[in-house]
């Protein structure tokens, strides 16, 4: 097989992986720090896509419509995340996992209905920016230019999160909270504020991912259910709370999916679940997680 075509497949796998990373990084961060398994994460991602549609619709006469709609949508969803954390999530920090899951699943249903009431049931289409509507050629291979943008945003978010977690005082506190929230609390650091900040950041990234997804196809109800399981697979493989783990596992999942489509089209999804099952059995804390949290 032509090497350039394998390269194209690898790039398409990378773009898929980056999209998954954008969804899963917030999920992993929230679970890693707060021990909250947010089943509604993908639904908030969908809210981001719808919010992007609204801002794009309002600005569509301008060339910069999508470029402005994406950050505005992410900020709006971050705000929604803040409300959810203050009103609901902080009340279940000390509850058992099944109770948290029930609450966040209820959120999936509530948000789904709110989306229906706000945006209706018909699909929404967001036109791509003109500069990203034509393919670019790398080594003679056509690549969807929008996915080059997705890959760039994925790496940018990774670097920004890495810088935040590794190089800032607030990031150090968040990392410390992953391992021992009691110790962090004993040092006089207000854990609830840390938690709110982390939750809003995680949801902001989900909103950003949703907004970026908007122009890829159409925005429609039920899209969240198609991605939530894959996002969970990424987090399980990478290790809850591990940023490098989420990045590496996103790329693994994206590439496994892409190359299995090339060589075993019927088994693409199955391979990802097999991989997840193997990691759960052999290394339950994930490739980059630590047994401490397992």
């Amino acid at each position, binding site marked *: *097989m*032509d090497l350039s*075509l*394998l390269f*194209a*497949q690898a*790039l*398409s*796998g990378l*773009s*898929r992986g980056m*999209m998954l990373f954008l969804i899963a990084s917030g999920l992993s961060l929230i679970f890693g720090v707060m021990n909250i398994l947010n089943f509604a994460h993908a639904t908030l991602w969908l809210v981001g896509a719808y919010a992007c549609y609204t801002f794009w619709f309002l600005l569509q006469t301008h060339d910069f419509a999508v470029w402005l709609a994406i950050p505005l949508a992410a900020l709006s969803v971050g705000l929604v995340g803040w409300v959810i954390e203050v009103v609901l999530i902080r009340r279940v920090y000390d509850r058992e996992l099944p109770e948290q899951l029930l609450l966040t699943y209820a959120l999936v249903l509530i948000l*789904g209905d709110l989306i*229906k009431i706000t945006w209706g*049931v*018909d*699909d929404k*289409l967001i*036109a*791509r920016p003109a500069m*990203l*509507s*034509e*393919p670019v050629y790398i080594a003679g291979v*056509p*690549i*969807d*230019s*929008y*996915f080059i943008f997705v890959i760039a945003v994925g790496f940018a978010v990774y670097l920004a999160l890495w810088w935040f977690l590794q190089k800032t005082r607030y990031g150090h506190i968040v990392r410390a909270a992953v391992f021992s929230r009691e110790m962090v609390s004993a040092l006089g650091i207000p854990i609830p504020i840390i938690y709110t900040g982390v939750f809003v950041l995680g949801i902001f990234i989900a909103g950003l991912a949703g907004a970026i*997804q908007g122009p*890829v*196809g*159409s925005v*429609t*109800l*039920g*899209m969240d*259910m*198609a*991605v939530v399981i894959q996002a969970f697979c990424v987090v399980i493989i990478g290790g809850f709370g591990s940023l490098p783990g989420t990045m590496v596992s996103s790329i693994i999942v994206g590439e496994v*999916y*892409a190359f299995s*489509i*090339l060589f075993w*089209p*019927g088994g*693409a*999804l199955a391979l990802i679940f097999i991989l997840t099952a193997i990691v759960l059995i052999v290394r339950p804390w994930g490739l980059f997680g630590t047994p401490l949290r397992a």
Partner: protein
Amino acid sequence: MRTKSLLCLAAVLAVCLTLVSGGMTQARAGEPYNLGAALAITGTGALYCQDGVDAIKLAVEEINAKGGFLGQHPIKLYIRDTHTKPDSAVRATRDLILRDKVRTVLGTYSSACAVAIKPVCLEYKVLHIPAISNSEGITLTNFSPYTYQVVPNSYMQAKAVVLGVAALAKKKGWKTFATIASDYEWGRSTQQNTVALLKQLAPDLKLIKEFWPPLGETQFTSYITAIMAQKPDFVIGSIASKDNVAWMKQAKAYGFFKKIPYPGSLISVTELILQAKTLDRGLVGLCRAPFFAHMDVPMMANFVKAFKKKYNRYPSDWAVMEYDAVYGLKQGIEKAKSIDSAKVKDALKGATIDTTRGKLYFRDIDNQLSCSSYLGVVADDPQYPFPIYHDLVEVKGPDSWRPEKEIIAARAAEKKK
């Protein structure tokens, strides 16, 4: 004496029972006709179903303006969401039948849903009219006399594509092809029918790879690059609704359609309208009931006018077929002179009905309407604010449906199992 009393009592009971059962089936004048629609209000199929629901509402309004069915049974419409999931569709259908007491269920979007609710409708002797879902399995096997299909089924659509593609392959010297189809009942059955028919009509063509994206796929990039890696001479696609929008949008961004011919994919009026600005002109597409193909039929012209007036947009294929479903039911009721579902079912058997697509008839063996499939070249038209099909080829139902002997054989094989 005692025997005589018992006989009298039995006779009275028998009369009572007859009256009660008669009262149950004999509809009174003015009694509403409860009509159910099990459609995908949310989920993958919502894009198509919204138009279908609007068309059903329009038809119901028109008929009710004249007093309802038979001029004396106003229609009460009950709409339930199948969420494009078979289990949910079965629940919705049972609710429609048991709680809302509907006599007919219109729907569904997903063929898997249609196949799932067919036995439920049969069990309760309720008419079932699929007008969007079109897997051949709905009428081919496990036949239900209560199910009437008003959409060209997957075999008919595949045959229409194949007739067009076989001619193109001969003309252009194509040798190899790949397929991409959504991984569920409709996608699978359409793909299998297309491949089987292509083998018959163009045995030299070689299928080099099949791709099965899951229903609800949002990112097709890996499929697009994988297909391009295979370098087929052409690709046949069976992807519908929002998945189709995502696929077309992303494939276009890869320059896919400029590199690999993609003839006969489903490009319904929905896609023509939604992707008016971005759809590649010159694509050879397939659709099921384009209104612009039959503007010479008064019923279609009136429908388009009324739909446009009420909803300020043009009707899609899905709207046309759901509208035909309601009017087909109306004609069945008029022929039966009753709203009793068993009688309407018998009246529709082999019946010729007036539809927006002209006079069509239900085939006896499978209750499939003799409706056409349409192939054409996507092109701009000054009459409409979106592209339509030019060089439209209408493949008539009787020219494209499965021969009766094959249906008999399929049912015999089913019985052996």
